[in-house]
Structure formats: C-alpha cells, structure tokens
C-alpha cells in the first residue's frame, strides 16, 4: 500500500534522511525502531509532506512526494505526530471534530467509538485540551486521527508518557485497528510492545533502514540490537 | 590576553563614538545640518529607551511618546519658571527635569500597564497614549491647548559665555547627554535587572520559578526607560523651544516603534541607527519628496518581511561573513545589486513622483525636479523613461539577486560547517 523508495529529507541545509526504503502492506502493523535522532519522525513527516524531501513515496499506486499535507490526508493517510500536538484552546470534543473529514459521513469511526475506547476522554470531553494530562493528550491525538477514517495510520511514539496499563491498552487497540483492515506504521522506542504486536520490524539508523525482518529475527539478532538500539 | 584585547576594542568603540559626536558639526556646519544633528541625538536616546521595552523586555508599547512628551512639557515649564526667575537652575540641567518627569509618569502609568504583558500590554499603552493626547487639548493650563507651550532657552545667567542662543551650543549640550545616556543604557543591559528583563521576554513563566517577580522586572525596566525617554523629551523642549500636544500623540509613539524596528531591536546599537534614520526621514526625506511617507511605509513592510532583525542584523550578518574572510568575494555582487537596484528604484520613484505631482501640485505646472533631473509630469518621454528604467532595473536586479542568494547561501553553509567543526574540536 505505502511504498517508499530512496527517500531523502532535509531540514533547511541539514540532510537527515539518506535514501529510506520501506513498504507497508494492507492490514499490516510495521514497527519502525531506532535511537533518538535516527530519523523516524522525519520519515513520517516526509510521507505527510511536512518536510522537504526527494525520492519516491507511492500510496495506493500514486506518487505523493511534494503533495501538501492536507492533500495527502484526504488520500486516506493518517498521522499521529509525536509530542502531543493537541489543540490546547479547543475542547476535547472540538479536537475530535477537527479530525473528521467533511461531516464525517461514512467514517468507520464516530465520537462514541472513541469515548468507548478511552472513557477518560468522555469524562473530560468539554474541558480545554490544553489542560489535559500528558497521557490524556496522547490518547486524544490518536483518536483525533482515527476520526478522519484513514486506511493507513502513522503513529509516532504513541506510548510516550503513558502509564504501563494504558500502554497495553494502546497495544490492544492497534491490533483492533489491524483487525478492521487498517495498516499501521508504528514508530516506537519501547521494544516490548513493538515486538509483541507488529508483523514486521524495521530498524533505522543515521537516516536509513539498517535492519528489516520479523520480531523473531530481531530477537535472534543481538548484534543489530546492540549496535542500533542499545548502547 | 583575550580580555585585554576586548577591553581595548571597547575603549576604541566608545572613544570613536565620543569623537564622532564632537567633530560631527565641523564636518557638516550648515544650519540645516546642525538642526539634523541635534535632533539625531534626541531621537537616539528616545529609540534606545524605547528598545529597553520592545527589544529587551518584549513589551510592545504604543504609547512611548507619553513619556518623552510629558518630559518635554515639564522641561518647558521648568524653563519658563527659570525665565521668570521663579526657579534657580542652570538651563543645562533642564533635560534632567524632563527625565525625572518621565520617570515619575512611568512610575504612575507603568504600575497599571506592566501588570499585563503581550497584547494586553500593547493595548493599554495604546489607550493611555490616546488618553493623554486627548487630555492635552482639555487642560490648556498645562498643555497650552492648540498653541502649545513655548519658552526661551536663553534664560538665567550665561555660564562662561554659554547662552544656548546659538544652535551649536545646544547641539553640544545634546551631544553630552546623548553620550552619557547611551553609555548608561548600554551598561544597563549588563546588569542583573537587564538580564532578567531578557529572561522575562523569552519565558516569563520560568522566571517566576527562579525566584523573580515578572511584574516587578517589567515595572522597574519600564520606569528606567521612562527616565531616559523623559531626558530626550527635555532636550527636545530646549531644542525646539515649543512643545505642543502632538509630542504625546500616537503618531510619535508609532514613529519610535517603526524606527526602532528598522534599526534593529535585537541588537543594542540597532535603535541608534533607527534614531538617525528617523531624523533623516523626517527632516531630509520629507524635504526631498512629498511621497516620503509612502517610501517609508514600503521600506518598513519590506524589512519586516525580509529582514525582521532590522538593519543592525544585516550588518552583523555581513560582519560574520567578513570575520570568516568571505566578504570580499561578495563585494562585486553587492555593487551589482546596488547598481541594478538603484536603477529600478530610480525609475519607480520617478513614476511615483510624477503621479504625486499631477495629484497634489498641478498649480506649479507640469515640470518637477527630482534628484537633479527634470521630469515632465505630462510628458510622454518622462513616463516612458521612468517605466523603462523600472522594468529594466527590475529584470537585471532579479537576475543579480538570484546569483547573490545562491552565493550567500553557500557561504552561510560553509560558515555553519566550520562552526560545527570548532565546537566539535
């Protein structure tokens, strides 16, 4: 479905991605691991057209490099940015509302699904999102993107700052998404959940993919873990 | 070693500044030049004091003229008391009266305004400004109504032959004040309060968590700025010998903002450039062309969009390039830019001038002189020429600019890299 070939990305003059190649198939969960600064978030941004980049990004067969973010989004790609980009001055409900495309008709998801998923949000649906706790904000960003009914969703460190219990919850829900035929590109720090739920894992280092395989293969390959994940 | 060289540099700069102030009137000695120089001193102090709020404190004030202006009024009244003999005081100290007044009113109004920051602060200052201005026409006893208050600076006994009658004597008085005030305000930026003021600008919330009361920091800075503003007002009173309501008006406040920004609010010396520009614009440019406000507005727009750091930042960038010894290779590009640019501007300006002429001074006939060349506002030739110049100029300029941008970018990249290596090494 998503097919990235030889992607290069730049922040101003600093060259951050050096030819990234990766695919995500339909209904697949792919984990993208790597250290801080290895370029995972940048990859996500590049796909969404939020950083200047060269190379090829094909989505459902059509080239989307250089498209504006809102165009990409309308093609059915969802993106959950890292560090909790909620809209602080809007209420929780309004935040979700902005997630909808148009009037939100024919979407697989409605407000109720979201509130069912995270009751905490329902409790606070009329408070300003800015005052939500770190974790609540994290949940909100995820839901907001789902409201747009994407076919593939790129999630950047969703479990950051979440209590272990919630982390498990999120893991469950990602699998539920998969069950509904939604593909997931999961950018993670915590090996544990990545290993437990993903079909394939990619490891990124210095702006390119340095390992690709199943969780098992990664487990079996201490060298890679040692070099690219731990210190 | 390093310390000594930097101390040497400092003395050199300040010495140079002093020297400049002293010899300036000898270089330009015409009556007009003297007027201009005197006003520059005044404007420099005003803009620097404004930048204490704007640049260093992040307080966008739309009412700074209140403090310069009220300073002026207090000073002129003091001057008149001296003339009547009701007050014993050398004229040379009158500006301090202005300063104290500015400080006093800053204490008063600042208490209200500095309780808020950001947009609210801007709005209150705007309101206070308008308020004082409206009051001016309401209390003729103090503000002198439409006519304003005039005074005579040849008051009291002359001190060793200094009567302050001739403009040159006034200039040197202003020069002295300018030097002292600039030095004092520079010193301020290197004091605890000065530094915390920057901190408050950048992140007020955190300041509260390192033990400082942001309101107090803003308030004290505001008061100090008020003092210097008042001094500049006092000098203005002596210089013009008349003070009318417009000195507290919004237009004046706007001018401070505008030129402080143009000069460059992010560097200490920016506002000095701003002050100089302000006078050049108000006195010379306005003499030169009726369209001066238009040019001013356009320049300002252009700067905000393309060089938000003001002229000062442009200078610093080039200095940096120079420091890495790469300015020379840009020289000819600059020349080209200048040549093509001025061709374009000349053409455009000529067009504007002719339109203005047609619009505003038809009674004076079709001829108008513009930078030495004579244009016929209804003459085909003039228009064709002007438009052609504009078009050609623009084309060439754009071409040159592209090259310049590329080259500039390359240089910056190179410098960045070298810096990287340094910090790595």
């Amino acid at each position: 479905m998503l097919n990235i070939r030889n992607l290069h990305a730049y922040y101003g003059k600093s060259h951050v991605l050096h030819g990234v190649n990766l695919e995500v198939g339909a209904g697949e969960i792919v984990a993208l691991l790597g250290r801080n600064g290895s370029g995972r978030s940048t990859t996500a941004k590049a796909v969404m057209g939020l950083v200047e980049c060269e190379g090829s990004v094909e989505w459902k067969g059509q080239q989307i490099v250089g498209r504006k973010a809102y165009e990409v989004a309308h093609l059915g790609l969802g993106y959950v940015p890292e560090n909790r980009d909620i809209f602080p001055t809007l209420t929780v409900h309004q935040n979700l509302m902005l997630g909808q495309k148009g009037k939100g008709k024919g979407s697989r998801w409605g407000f109720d699904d979201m509130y069912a998923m995270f009751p905490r949000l329902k409790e606070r649906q009329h408070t300003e999102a800015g005052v939500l706790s770190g974790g609540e904000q994290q949940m909100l960003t995820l839901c907001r993107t789902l409201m747009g009914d994407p076919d593939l969703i790129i999630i950047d460190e969703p479990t950051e700052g979440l209590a272990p219990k919630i982390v498990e919850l999120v893991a469950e829900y990602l699998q539920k998404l998969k069950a509904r035929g939604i593909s997931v590109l999961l950018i993670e720090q915590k090996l544990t959940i990545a290993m437990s739920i993903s079909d394939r894992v990619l490891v990124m280092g210095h702006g390119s993919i340095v390992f690709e395989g199943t969780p098992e293969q990664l487990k079996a390959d201490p060298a890679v873990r040692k070099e690219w994940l731990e210190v | 070693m390093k310390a000594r060289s930097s101390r040497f540099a400092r003395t050199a700069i300040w010495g140079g500044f002093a020297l400049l102030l002293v010899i300036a009137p000898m270089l330009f000695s015409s009556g007009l030049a003297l007027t201009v120089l005197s006003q520059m001193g005044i404007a420099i102090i005003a803009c620097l004091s404004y930048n204490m709020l704007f640049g260093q404190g992040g307080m966008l004030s739309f009412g700074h003229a209140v403090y310069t202006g009220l300073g002026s009024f207090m000073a002129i009244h003091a001057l008149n008391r001296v003339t009547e003999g009701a007050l014993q005081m050398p004229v040379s100290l009158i500006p301090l009266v202005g300063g104290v007044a500015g400080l006093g009113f800053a204490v008063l109004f600042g208490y209200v305004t500095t309780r808020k920051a950001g947009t609210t602060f801007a709005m209150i200052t705007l309101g206070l400004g308008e308020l004082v201005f409206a009051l001016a026409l309401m209390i003729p006893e103090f503000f002198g109504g439409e006519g304003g208050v005039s005074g005579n600076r040849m008051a009291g006994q002359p001190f060793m032959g200094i009567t302050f009658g001739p403009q040159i004597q006034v200039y040197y008085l202003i020069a002295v004040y300018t030097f002292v005030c600039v030095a004092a305000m520079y010193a301020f930026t290197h004091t605890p309060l000065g530094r915390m003021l920057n901190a408050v600008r950048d992140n007020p919330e955190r300041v509260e968590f390192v033990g400082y009361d942001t309101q107090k920091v803003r308030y004290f800075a505001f008061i100090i700025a008020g003092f210097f503003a008042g001094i500049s007002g006092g000098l203005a009173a002596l210089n013009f010998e008349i003070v009318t309501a417009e000195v507290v008006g919004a237009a004046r406040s706007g001018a401070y903002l505008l030129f402080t920004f143009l000069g460059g609010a992010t560097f200490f010396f920016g506002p000095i450039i701003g002050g100089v520009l302000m006078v050049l614009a108000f006195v010379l440019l306005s003499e030169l062309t009726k369209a001066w406000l238009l040019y001013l507005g356009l320049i300002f727009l252009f700067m905000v969009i393309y060089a938000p750091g003001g002229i000062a930042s442009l200078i610093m960038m080039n200095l940096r390039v120079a420091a890495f010894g790469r300015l020379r290779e840009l020289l000819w590009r600059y020349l080209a830019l200048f040549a093509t640019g001025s061709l374009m501007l000349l053409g455009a300006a000529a067009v504007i001038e002719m339109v203005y002429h047609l619009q505003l001074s038809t009674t004076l006939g079709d001829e108008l002189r513009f930078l030495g060349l004579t244009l016929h506002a209804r003459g085909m030739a003039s228009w064709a020429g002007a438009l052609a110049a504009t078009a050609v100029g623009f084309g060439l300029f754009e071409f040159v600019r592209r090259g310049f941008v590329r080259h500039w970018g390359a240089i910056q990249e190179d410098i960045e890299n070298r810096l990287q290596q340094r910090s790595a090494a």
Partner: protein
Amino acid sequence: MEFFIISMLNGLSYGLLLFMLSSGLTLIFSMMGVLNFAHASFYMLGAYVGYSVAQFVGFWPALLIAPVVVGLLGAAFERQCLRKVHKFGHVPELLVTFGLSYVIVEIVQLVWGRIAVEFRPPEVLRGPVFTLINHSIDGMRLVWGSAPAELCSAADAAVRVVCSPFPATRGFMMLVAVVMLLSVWLLLTRTRIGLVIQAALTHPEAVESLGHNVPRVFMLVFGAGSALAGLAGVIGGSTFLTEPAMAATVGSVIFVVVVVGGMGSLSGAFVASLLIGVIQTFAVAFEYSLLTLLEQLGMPLSDALRNNSYIKLTLSQVAPILPYLFLVLILIFRPRGLLGKREG
C-alpha cells in the same frame, strides 16, 4: 424629549458604524490572533473605492463592488505579506499591518488627493427617514419622510413647534450593521472554520495533516474581514466625510471597542460599540461638570475653586477622552473585557 430620541438614534447609529468596523477586526483577531492595524485603512479604502465606483455605476452597485474589491486586496495582502511573517509570530504580523496602514494612507492620497472628496449618498438617502414634530400643544408625533413646512411652523407665536428630521443615511447605516451582525454570527457558529483556524494558530502542521487547507482559510478570513471594513467604509464615507484622515480618526476608537468588548468576542464588540457610540454622543450634550455637581450637592465653594479649570471641565469637553478612559479602566479591572472569554 425629541432631543433625547434624536440623540439616542445618533448615538446608536454611530455605535453601529463602529460595530461594522470592529466586527471585521474581531473576526480577524479572534480567528487569526492578528491585531490588524490596517483595518481602519481598509475602511478608508472602502470609502474611496466606493466613491470612484459610484462615479461610474452609481451608489448601489458601488455598495457591493467596493467591499469585494477591498476584500480581494485584503486577501492579496494576506497572501503576499502576512503569510510570510506568520512564522515569526504575532509581533511581526502586527508590525506588517502597521506598516501597511502607512502605505494605504499615502496611496489613497496619491490616487484621490490630500483633501476630502465629495462622496454624496444617493437621492433616496438624502432626505430624512422620518421627522419628529413636537408641538407644544398637540404634543409629539412622527411623520415618515420629511414633514411639510406648514407642520413645522405655527400660526401664532405662543405655540412652539420643533421639527427634528432623522437622516436616512443614518437609518440605512443601522440597517446594514444589523444585517452584518447576523451574517458574521452565522459564519462563526454554523461553520467549523473558526475551530480550524484557532487550532492552526498553535499547531499548523497537525491541522494540515488532518486534511485542512490552512493557508486558504486564513486568506479567506482576512479577506472577509477586510471586505466588512470596506462595506463600512462605503456607508461611513458617504454619510460623514471621505478624507485621508478618516482611518486615523476611527482607528484607535475601534481598538477601544474590540478590547473593551473582549478580544475576539463578537457580541462583546457589539455591546461595546453601542455603548461608546451612545456615551460619546450624549457626553457632547451634557454641560455638567464637577463644579455643577458640587453645587448640586450644596457644597460651599471658594471662588478660587470655582475658577479652577479642572473642576469646571464639562462632560461635553471631556467627551473625547471617555472611550480611552473606559479602555484603561476595563483593562485594569476586567482585562478580558466585557464579554471576553480569555485574556487577550
């Protein structure tokens, strides 16, 4: 009595004109967080463009065309200038509009000259809407349009008759303002635009990746706001005076309105506009001063005090400062304004 009615109407109509202006300003501020210093300049542009267009196609078409033109200019400005500095934050944005206000005044003088132009309302609006006739015997009555001369003059000197016509221009002004209020209110409540922009202020990237074309919305809003100012300009200009200083004269007052009403609160702006309009109109009418007050209270006053010019100041004399006094007081005691939600 008729004095009160007429003054009240004058006050309201002036207030509503202020509202026409502040509504656009509020729209832009509440949505984009930009304090548009050039707003009053767009008002002036509206007047002048309206004037010129009216020369060719008459007043009514001008009433539509001028706002559109101004709106387009506003949008263009947003696209070419405002958008470029958006990333630097609010102060540069504010400064850009500040600079623009200078440029517009000059361009106006360049195109239309430095002295007022004769922008007359259409025939239908020249007369009065209605006339109040106050007859010292038959009492007060109202006739639509202008009252025939015989009604306004009495046979014998004993009876006193006063005719007070209310100009149609002002009536029209009130009408348009109300319509405008409704439409803006609808725009804000019936659409999601407001939310999108608010969100985009802090997290443009996030909003875009949710599929909203942020730049376009910004441009539309700014254009719409300017258009409103333009409309106000056509009406204000033809009712009062079309001259290069007209921007400066309303400029600071509408800021007062917006702040007093509560930054970004439309209803607040509405209330504040009327309040200030009425206050200013009536203030002119009242000769009360501290002095009169003290005398009413029957205080013994020394002659020195009587001649003290401060307490002799009458309300009508201090009228000009009232709005600003109001502003400062509000900001001190209720910084979020009359109906504002958050602090500006």
